């Protein structure tokens, strides 16, 4: 990392142009991954990351450059390259003052310092637990991923902030086979935490869930298609909100009028049962940070309050275009990406309905027990997500498991069609890909009921 004086020199050089803002994002870190196939260690990979991203603004124009050559001559050359877009101006001297940020995400067992054997043992435990579920489980792939990221962010407003991020995630794919029928199940919890995370979320439980999913799918029937009521379970079911609405509330889409929710603040965009939150401050949350990737303190943002649009997720540059303040939502995968507004831990708040009551009155519907991922086109609001495990509901009762289903619709409509929100809020972990790279985000919700949505399956009558 550069020292304070070096940061000041580079920033001062950058501001000797017509830019009105300059920022340095320095990053060092290590990614470690260990993978097992059944009980054998198959791979271990380590990546040491080190580089810098430099950004200049002039009004709403931005220029961004990155490199892993971080000596002063290379950085000056990079700044020259960037500044030529705006033209030269009188020299300005930048003086930095460091702000020390409190760490809200403490780590007890440093995952990179723990022995390799300890980490392999976690994977072995997940494997054994998966195998014990059923003799038809024939392959188990498990991996542990560790990310340690040190960042230093400084800018021409005099800001100098440091942050350390530590993340661990255990992922298990279990494969089940019965004759020619092969199915797989997945479970992958993680946190901004050390290895102590696996004391509360045991590897055994992770392996078991992945294996049970694969076994269940061996017996699942094809899912029918058509419009029907759907109950989406808690936890990863929150991907529905993430895709159908979350991306369209990011300033990246809103600022350039590329979102169906542009200019809708204060208007009802969801059922009055829906309150939605994006909270980057949850202690040890998978998508949490102490500061965002522009060095602003992370915040809890109430996006939708009782169905009314209350806030967007805004980064500084898009905030300029919108005439609004940053909400501390600027994130990026690494120094190789210019940051922009992104989600952190996004969820629908708990409601008051009881889970059992949600099935009452459904003649034919789908209970989406476990969701896969999804995607959205913010311009049209059209989204899709996959259901990895579902059950048919017939006359108010769960009847049989189904596979191979997806749900599609328009974000602006689905939010208004949520007619029940239960009280069993749960969060789950995922990776979200967008213009500033792939970042860890939590999704979450209590079980919700959508009165009507298009289900796509293969069992057409």
């Amino acid at each position, binding site marked *: 990392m550069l020292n304070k004086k070096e940061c000041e020199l580079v920033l001062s050089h950058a501001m000797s142009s017509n830019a009105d803002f300059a920022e340095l994002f320095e990053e060092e870190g290590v990614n470690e991954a*260990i993978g097992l*196939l059944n009980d*054998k*260690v*198959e*791979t*271990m*990979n*380590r*990546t*040491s990351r*080190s*580089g810098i991203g430099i950004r200049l603004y002039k009004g709403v*124009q*931005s*220029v*961004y450059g*990155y*490199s*892993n*050559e*971080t000596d002063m001559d290379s950085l000056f050359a*990079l700044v020259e390259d*960037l500044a030529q877009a705006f033209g030269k101006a009188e020299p300005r001297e930048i003086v930095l003052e460091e702000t020390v940020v409190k760490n809200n995400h403490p780590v007890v067992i440093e995952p990179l310092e723990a022995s390799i054997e300890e980490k392999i043992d976690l994977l072995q435990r997940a494997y054994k637990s998966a195998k014990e579920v059923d003799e038809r489980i*024939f*392959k188990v792939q498990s991996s542990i991923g560790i990310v340690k990221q040190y960042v230093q962010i400084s800018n021409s407003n005099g800001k100098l902030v440091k942050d350390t991020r530590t993340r661990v995630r255990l992922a298990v794919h279990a494969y089940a086979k019965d004759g020619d*029928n*092969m*199915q*797989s199940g997945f479970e992958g919890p993680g946190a901004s935490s050390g290895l102590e995370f696996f004391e509360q979320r045991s590897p055994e439980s992770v392996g078991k869930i992945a294996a049970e999913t694969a076994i269940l*799918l061996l017996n699942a029937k094809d*899912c029918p*298609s*058509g*419009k029907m009521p759907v109950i989406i379970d808690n936890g990863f079911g929150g991907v529905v909100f993430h895709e159908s609405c979350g991306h369209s509330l990011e300033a990246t889409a809103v600022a*350039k*009028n*590329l979102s*169906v929710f542009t200019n809708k603040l204060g208007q009802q965009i969801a059922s009055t049962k829906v309150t939605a939150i994006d909270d980057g401050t949850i202690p040890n949350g998978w998508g949490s940070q102490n500061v965002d990737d522009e060095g602003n303190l992370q915040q809890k943002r109430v996006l939708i309050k009782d169905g009314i649009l209350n806030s967007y997720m805004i980064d500084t540059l898009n905030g300029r275009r919108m005439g609004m303040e940053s909400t501390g939502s600027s994130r990026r995968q690494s120094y190789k990406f*210019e940051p922009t507004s992104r989600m952190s831990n996004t969820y629908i708040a708990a409601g008051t309905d009881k889970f059992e009551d949600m099935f009452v009155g459904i003649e034919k519907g789908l209970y989406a027990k476990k969701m896969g*991922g999804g*995607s959205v*086109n913010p*311009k*049209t609001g*059209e989204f*899709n*997500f*996959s259901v990895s495990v579902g059950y048919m509901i017939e006359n108010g009762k769960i009847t049989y498991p189904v*596979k*191979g289903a*997806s749900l*599609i*619709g328009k974000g602006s409509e689905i939010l208004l069609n949520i007619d029940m929100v239960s009280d069993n809020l749960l969060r789950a972990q995922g990776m979200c890909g967008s213009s500033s790279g792939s970042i860890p985000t939590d999704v979450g919700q209590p079980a919700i009921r959508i009165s009507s949505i*298009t289900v*796509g*399956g*293969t*069992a*057409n009558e």
Partner: protein
Amino acid sequence: MNKEKWIQCALEKGMEGFEIYQSFQTEKEFSWYEGDLDSFVTSKFLGTSIRGLYNGKMANMALESVKDEEMDSIIEQLILQAKIITMKEDDALRFPEPIEYIDRVTNIVYPSIEEIKEFLSVLEKEILAYDQRVSQVSSLSYSYQKDKRSIYNSLGINVEEADQGQFLVAAVVVQEGEEVRDASHVLVIDSLAQIDREEFVKTLCDKALGKLHASSLKTQNCPVIFERGAMTSLFSAFTGLYKGDLIYKELSPIKDKLDQQIYSEKITVIDNPRNKDSLNQLSFDDEGCPTREKKVVENGIFKTPLMDTKSALCLKRESTGNGFKPGYAGKVGVSAMNMYIAPGEASLEDLWKHMNTGLMITSLSGLHAGIDFASTNFSLQAQGYWIENGKKDHYVTLITVAGNFLELMNKVVEIGNDLDWSYRSMACPSIYFEDCSIGGE
């Protein structure tokens, strides 16, 4: 990085082999928005990854900052990593082999910043002027990328290859009443001067305008044409089927189908990293193995898995030159490169006529989640056109298409002749299938 010194150090510490892979990339991208330069991104990046064999096991590490003074501790860490690998299968580094380098005659002319700004400015105005329903140019950018990769190992491999490309990308939003649609278009170019702007604007805008007046469909099974773009997306999602490592681990659904009929006899699948029509051509893979053309599926019969060195050792066969990294930092794995389905005789219009009534799918969404590789089941969001009496009728959206890939590939009626490589490293012609399950209203 003193490569020779690193190799020597690794061998002295007891490694049986050691390899250094480097990837050097420079990029520039200019984006234009509402009459002005919106953003400019520039980068220069050298990524280094090392791998070494210890007791037959391969360990990998990637470094963004390489310091020769840290060499000892890094190699010791690498040995430690190799020691924990307990898989019984061994890996190997490759010896040098004769490589026939692809002749890269390039006519690339790089424009000045002023020329780029002028070009994007004019293009944006022309797109907006094309039709009053064009409401926004949501994305407009020019970029170039120069890459060089090199491999240096203790068995004598010392190879490098460079590539470069320039790209023009535009996306447009059209609106009529409350209905909003969008489309994008990408060109790989030698120079800005070569671009037929009128043609570019027409292709882009017509693609978006053609989506207006969209409706959904009733849930049904019907004949389906996967237009080449959608077919390529679906096909790409299942290239793992042919991977030697997944076949060896019994995770590929076609693991025991070698020399057996897996698809309709109308289907032939070819992998050719040297294909001059595709976006990238590679003379050797990321292990230094020369690349070559091979028929993976011939007339529906599965002829060969794709293999890197390790999976070839496991399957007791030869590498097919398909050992590629998913980026400089990842470990070598098996990957298809410039794979395609051999085209047929019929034009797209012929396929419409032969189908008469049915659905043509032009794009698919949700491929990262709606695919179940183990069962080859898929359920995806789709868009396309309803075909009535052999002609395009209206745009269809908010539907799903679902099925089983292996079953679908056995329901081929006819294959189109419209293979298009333009900016792709995988390609399929349009294909007409007997039927598929469509979910809608």
